[in-house]
């Protein structure tokens, strides 16, 4: 099962390697990871989506993360009210005939067609993963050529 956790870390070189190394060394799976500075430039924020087969594994992941010296705080969003979003950039095939259809579909999902050149449209969309998945499913009929996603970011209330 997938769980979203956030990790506040000291913004020092090597911290990302400590976190990712911990996952690989202990056999945990990261399905996505997003990192950036916070308001405090000495602190970075990571949103990590992990695959954990049960609660015990999730517990271990949190404990092991907490054990790293540079980690300030671990938050598990599993049972916590929070907001999560992901940004995607997706290339789909487009032509004069379906251009309008694509635009209408993207508008419905509150995304944007950034560019439509030659035979390719680049679309951006932001949303929860279910909404993103639905958009991608719908875009499939036009032919998705390439997909880039940021991975989830999440923040608790």
């Amino acid at each position, binding site marked *: 099962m997938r769980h979203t956790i956030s990790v506040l870390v000291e913004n020092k070189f*090597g911290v990302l*390697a400590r976190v990712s*190394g911990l996952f690989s060394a202990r056999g945990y799976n990261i399905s996505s990871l997003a990192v950036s500075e916070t308001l405090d430039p000495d602190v970075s924020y990571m949103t990590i989506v992990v695959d954990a087969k049960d609660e015990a594994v999730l*517990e*271990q992941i949190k*404990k092991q993360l907490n*054990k790293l010296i*540079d980690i*300030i705080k671990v938050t598990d969003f599993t049972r916590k009210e929070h907001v999560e979003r992901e940004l995607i950039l997706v290339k789909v095939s487009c032509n004069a005939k379906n251009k309008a259809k694509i635009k209408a579909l993207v508008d419905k999902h509150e995304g944007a067609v950034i560019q439509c050149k030659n035979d390719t449209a680049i679309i951006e969309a932001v949303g929860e993963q279910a909404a993103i998945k639905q958009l991608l499913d719908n875009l499939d009929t036009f032919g998705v050529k390439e997909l880039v996603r940021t991975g989830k970011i999440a923040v608790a209330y």
Partner: protein
Amino acid sequence: MTGAQILIESLKKAGVEVIFGYPGGQVLPLFDKLYDAPFKFILTRHEQAAAHAADGYSRATGRVGVCIATSGPGATNLITGLATAYMDSIPMVAITGQVKSWLIGNDAFQEADVTGITRPITKHNYLVKDIKDLSRIIAEAFYIASTGRPGPVLIDVPTDIQQQEYEFSWPDSIELRSYKPTLFGHPGQIKKAVKAIVASKKPVIYAGGGCITAGAHNELKEFAEKINAPVTLTLMGLGAFPATHPLSLGMLGMHGTAYANHSIMNADLIIAIGARFDDRVTGKLDTFAKGANIIHIDIDPSSISKNVAVHVPIVGDARNVLGQILEELKKTPDTSDWIKTVEAWKKKHPLVYHSKGKINPQYVIEQIGEATQGDAVIATEVGQHQMWAAQWYKVLHPRSFISSGGLGTMGFGFPAAMGAKMGCPDKTVFDIAGDGSIQMNIQELATCVCNKIPVKVAILNNGYLGMVRQWQELFYKHRYAHTTLYNPDFVKVAEAYGGVGIRVTKKEDVRPAIDKAIATDNVVFIDFHVEPEENVFPMVPAGESIDKMIGGLA
């Protein structure tokens, strides 16, 4: 002050007295300052030995062990030592040279990404990028190494940082927002634990290395006697409770005593203190202590409920938490029937060995025990001799049994014994070794002779890599694939380095040789020619339930 001088001043402030190490190109500025520094510097003959010696020093004294090596190969030679210390939670600070800051990443001569390599085998590590951070980093390193669940910390210092000038300052205290070990148990959990203890009829105390680290031996004894519960120890816990105490069950697990394993499997309450339910202890997890509630006291939250589901977790320092429990404990359980059952197991299944024609290795260990009266510090290598030492040497005091438990590092014992002797010069220090293990760091004879470190090495020479051979005998149809050893003449090897060698081939010569070694003020190799195919029993086959023991049951 130069970076090298700052390093020296910082080590002085940290209270360092002994340093083990090896020089090289990228630590030349530091060694130049070490030349005049007040530390006892022990030049080992291999960096790995420097790491193990710092580790052994730490295990014997409780202080932070320090080792120094150069960049690249010097640093990579420390790896096994760091991993050994990490697995057994031993406080150490390793300082390595690094190529000049601007060369890092350029594949410079003797460059290796040492912080990268050591990340998973250190508690924390640092690459010093700015001389302004140097003294703070050293102070933090000692603090991190020695607090919470201890462990090795590595500091990688580029040569140019060693040469730069900056003023020296030393922090009065260390405050890390991201690192605050929990030292005392949660009062609510203490109450729950006490309730479970009072309600139990068949409690067993299962204590590990955490009790040694925390110095909890007195509290442990008081606790065990108060609730009248038998105590079994892990390999790392040996010494936390006297082996001669009537409540002692000795070691449990794969080569534990039958009565320890039966006790834990039939207990209704297991009180785990500073132990981590390692696979060598639990055997098959599905069948481990099914009828027992478990109280788990550990300073590392990640050790709790990692392998075994725990009913009452208590995060805290073993000594503090035992103190809290003792204070809260107004009533005590009635365990008299249980103690009778345990006593019956002890009588029925004692540890035994059967004398054959040659010297029994167990006999040698018993004789070392008798000759030293439990007052020695015993280090071991890894293999059959290690398990025999754990079974047959009666460890009475904490920090007097030094062994690589978690990593199982052959070659550990001899340099660790050297480190222990540097920390405890008044104690007799033995390394109980096998003929395989001793050859992994045999070059340290030179270190012992040059620095007058008179450790005694008892080589239980069976001409095999005995533990592997035992598994081949039992599980691989006697196919002894590459476990037969051709050995040098250990007596001559010792003598060639300037040490003393004694060969023992007859049982009656065992004790005189041990006595002579103890009386000799030099490093001594005693080459005991023991029964070649003796096995360590009892034994629980890997992955089997720990009450399914084979062999050695009377």
